[in-house]
């Protein structure tokens, strides 16, 4: 739902910006996520059922992320804009045999929204090297979906949702490569730094999530980012490659 809202927002932004030197970027990247608190928390939950042979089958691995951004050329070398990125990863504690199954799924999604600035550092032929800086917030959603089933005996399940809004900054370096007409290939390498945000129960900000030691659990999306995407210049010729 939230992803739909972000998409619709971007769509509306796009519709409201005719006539500007506007660039729309769609990127697909890969990120590594620190998420140490959550990994520890996953271990805590595993140990909570230490009598069961539960294994952490997935532990918040690095995964693809998707982002869109809209930019406006301040001049041919400076571009500012807004961007939205969708991060997703998750963890699972799991065991299963002939008699039943225990499963604890912990999907974690992040909707990063922020501003960005690019400065074209160098241009030659079809390539523009740039430095980029992003900053903003990440709307993180962390879910606990636990189920325990003994076949033909009983089953139980529970769900809980937690939210966090950490701030982030992301410096990066990248380049555009002009493909044809208004399309360019965009690639950058950066590193996201999160100012950690506490997880709390959805709908109740006072109900924070704690680990077994009683400490707050934060969402920390910090990590290396690699992204490759396509940029499209709306409403004008490719301004960046104009001489």
């Amino acid at each position, binding site marked *: 739902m939230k*992803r*739909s809202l*972000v*998409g*619709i927002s*971007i*769509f509306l932004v*796009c*519709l409201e910006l*005719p006539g500007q030197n506007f660039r*729309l970027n*769609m990127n697909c990247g890969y990120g590594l996520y620190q998420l140490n608190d959550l990994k520890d928390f996953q271990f805590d939950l595993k140990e909570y059922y230490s*009598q*069961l*042979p*539960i*294994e952490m*089958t*997935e532990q918040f691995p690095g*995964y*693809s992320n*998707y982002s*869109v951004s809209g930019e406006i050329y301040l001049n041919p070398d400076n571009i500012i804009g807004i961007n939205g990125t*969708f991060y*997703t*990863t*998750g*963890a*699972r504690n*799991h*065991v*299963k*045999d*002939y*008699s*039943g*199954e*225990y499963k604890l*799924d*912990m*999907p*974690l*999604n992040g909707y990063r929204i922020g501003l960005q600035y690019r400065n074209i550092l160098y241009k030659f032929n079809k390539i523009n090297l740039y430095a980029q800086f992003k900053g903003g917030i990440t709307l993180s959603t962390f879910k606990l979906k636990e189920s*325990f089933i*003994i*076949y033909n*005996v*009983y089953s139980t399940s529970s769900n809980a949702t937690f939210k966090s809004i950490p701030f982030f900054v992301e410096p990066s370096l990248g380049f555009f490569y002009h493909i044809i007409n208004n399309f360019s290939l965009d690639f950058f390498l950066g590193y996201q730094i999160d100012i950690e945000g506490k997880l709390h129960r959805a709908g109740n900000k006072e109900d924070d999530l704690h680990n077994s030691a009683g400490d707050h659990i934060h969402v920390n999306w910090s990590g290396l980012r690699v992204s490759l995407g396509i940029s*499209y210049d*709306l409403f004008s010729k490719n301004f960046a490659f104009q001489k």
Partner: protein
Amino acid sequence: MNYDKNQILFIIFLILFLSGCEYDLHKENFRDIQQPDETHQFDLNLSSEQDTIKVFNTTVFNYNINTYGLTMLEGDFSLGGNHWSIFSKQGSFTVSPDDYSAGYDTLSLVIFTGSGSGSLADLAGVEGYMVEKRWLMLIDGRSAPQITLSSSITEEGYLKISWPQCDQYNFHSYEISGPAFTKTVNDPACIFYVDSSYIGGSASYRVNTRVLTNNQLSLGKILTMNDPFPTLQFTDLGLDSLKIFWNRSKYKCRYKLERIDTNPDSTLLESSVDTFCIMLQPGLAMRAQYRLYTYPFYLNSSNTGYIKNDVQYHVLGQRIAGNWPYYGYNHLDRALYTNTYDYMECYDISSMTKLNSVTLHNLIYQGNYSCPTNSTKVATISSENIYVFTDKNLQSPVIIPHNLGFNDIDHFYLTDNDLIAILTPVRYMLIRTGDNKRMATINIDDYPVYSKWACMSTSKDGRYACIVTYNGLKLYNIEDTVVTNVYSDARSYRSVLFDINDPSRLMLTLNDDNILEIRNAADFELVKSIGLPTAQVLRNIDPESGYLLLKDRGNAYIVDLNTSEVVLKVRMHENEYMPQLYGNRLFTVYGYTLDISQYLPQ
């Protein structure tokens, strides 16, 4: 605004792109493990592994459960609504019998174990084995009952002590105690005890009950048996035979009758059947002592305590006085006189009921009596005075002081003409009661030694006095105050007695001959001679019947002077030296009297 198709398509693609790429959690940890077997081996051991577990005391049960590697989840011992949850394979629990009704119950153990498969169900405790075992238990924590005894007699005749059976499961024993035994019986069905030793008398029995619970003992109620045991009774079968008998014991026993006043004791009867014995009468005034032993039929060293003995005296005759009394009898008053200590007493001769009594100082030291045949008077003598009463009312006696003191009075006689004759060593005196004048005094040179009380006699008219010894006879005539020896001889005599019916007749018995001679006092001519069975001593003539009483050592003889026949022989105490016959009654110096009228010719 104008949008080309490419722009629109790009935006839609962008939205779909963003919406369908959430991270997919798909990795699983599947454990391919083997399912458990349908059955499994278990060992359930309880500390008491009997077929039936008996709980009579607070008992700690130790259990040891071998699951052969399986995890025991939980277990539960249950007994009569009580539960003991267990969570370990070894442990204990306590059962108190007070918490249960007495009887059989079942101890159940149900345990749940894991399956051991390691599956999630196993680990979650919902897959495993259920084991159940039951033990039959016998519980009884009751106190021992108090037993009340009852008694009966077996067909064989033995005492049987019975009691209700103790039907408690925790029964341990009966503790039976009796007069001479204590026994412990562990069989609850043993509900009687035959005491073959009991033969009567007081005996207490008690049966205590002991139970295993706390080794508690309840004292039984005491049963006191007090059945009469045989005691001696006597019936005189005439003058010659005595029947000794006793009440038969209700119980089978043996009897032993002994006479124990002899030396040595003599056994008269031993029997388990007979309850009487007829024997020779020991004799008048012969106080014989008998003992009846009643003892167990099977007598041994352990039951001698049951022996009962009854010791009784029996004497032929009625005791009326003590301290070797003398007697006097006035046939006109039919009054018998004697004394107890200083009390002069008067009895009706027929009923021997006391009619009167008077105290005469120091009467006990003499106590001789004499009555005339022609009046109701009676004379007696103490160590100080002679008393002459006019009749049995014993009022206002004539008192004649004397100075004889405690000298023996071997002859004391009140004549029909109020003269009192006294023989005391070594003098014979005749005193007139009217004026206390001594009418005659005879010094006795040859004073009698043997049966001296029978060796002097005075005629009832006071004219004659005769004294005999083994050395001879002297017959005196007393006229007023003149004493004349009218006859003497040197024969050996035992006794002399003037006939109260004819004062001129003199009766003599000889020492060497069994002859009773009746002679005329005036000339000493033999009137009659009566042969006697033995050499005897004259005692007196009964003024009622006229019968003459004689005595030898051991027997009294009653002779009819008219027929010269011995009409009755009465066995007497061998030491009875001076019996008397008054009103058809014999009186002895031992204080007994016996009515012999039924044995005399009518």
